[in-house]
């Protein structure tokens, strides 16, 4: 028997729909090592990732959000009770600190998408200049253009990220910004926002969108603080594991 873990809390959680876990399993909140863990009891080591199970995981974490701000676990965490107790015991200090940081906060997500006509891509302007060049020259020119374009895009992504951070500075507690996480995304940002500042956050973001109408935005939230939950790096550095 393993415990499939949804999230961890530092206060009691009242779960209304106890049969809505992964695979239709019941959901319980149990006290362990001074924490409250929201779990389902499962037989399998690996819970299959399907649309239903993934949505169930998020649904349970969101339900816990009604009572408190939990630390969400990544999908698929199924461990023995002994392993979980050991984990909680070894990382108590980091977890308590993390709870203090995320208390009464939510995560808001912003992804900025590169426009399809690539107004951000200056290499396009030079595209027609050497169409009639010899194949070798054309290859080198294309290569150079790609390199210059990539550098320029990274620079512009940094500039946009800087502007976004400056705009949101007063209304967010923490931020995680990734520049160009994929080819079509300029930046992916996660903001930790106090629940009381959510409206102000949305106003500031709307203002930023108006300032940069050429950019496409995908905004979502509020989320449980998935992006601000992990303490793994601190643990590894503490124990010198590499």
């Amino acid at each position, binding site marked *: 028997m393993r415990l499939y*873990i949804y999230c*961890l809390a530092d206060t009691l959680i009242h779960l209304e729909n106890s049969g809505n876990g992964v695979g239709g399993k019941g959901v319980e909140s149990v006290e362990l090592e001074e924490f409250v863990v929201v779990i389902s009891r499962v037989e399998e080591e*690996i819970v299959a*990732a399907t*649309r239903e199970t*993934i*949505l169930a*995981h*998020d649904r349970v974490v969101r339900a816990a959000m009604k009572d408190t701000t939990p*630390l*969400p*676990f*990544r*999908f*698929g*965490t*199924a*461990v023995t009770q002994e*392993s*979980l107790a050991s*984990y909680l015991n070894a990382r108590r200090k980091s977890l308590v600190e993390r709870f203090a940081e995320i208390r009464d906060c939510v*995560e808001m*997500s912003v*992804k900025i*998408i590169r*426009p*399809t006509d690539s107004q951000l891509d200056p290499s396009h302007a030079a595209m027609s200049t050497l169409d009639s060049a010899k194949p070798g020259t054309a290859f080198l020119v294309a290569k150079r253009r790609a390199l210059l374009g990539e550098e320029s895009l990274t620079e512009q992504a940094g500039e946009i990220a800087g502007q976004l951070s400056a705009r949101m500075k007063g209304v967010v507690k923490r931020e995680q910004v990734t520049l160009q*996480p*994929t*080819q*079509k*995304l300029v930046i992916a940002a996660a903001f930790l926002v106090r629940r009381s500042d959510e409206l102000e956050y949305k106003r500031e973001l709307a203002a930023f969108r108006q300032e940069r109408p050429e950019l*496409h*935005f*995908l*905004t*979502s939230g509020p*989320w*449980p603080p*998935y*992006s601000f*939950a*992990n*303490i*793994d790096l601190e*643990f*590894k550095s503490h*124990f010198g*594991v*590499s």
Partner: protein
Amino acid sequence: MSSPFDQVLIGSDVQLTDESELSLLETLDHVLNRGLVIAGEITIAVADVDLIFVGLNVLISSVETANEVLRERERRGIAAVSPAKQAADQ
């Protein structure tokens, strides 16, 4: 290689307010890529790659995450075999 977002976000300008395909993708991005991860003892003893992470998330998570893991393994010169097999071989 690309993340699931590349397939649907071209030219989009979307504010999510309810259940939709995009909100599912956002959910995938959060639930599969982020959150607390329990690093088991085998992981710590063999490499800094979580067995659960490799066995589950890489196969069904974003390509970006899988690439990160593979790049890190390559950087460390770890052969492309599972941590479990490495542990067994030792």
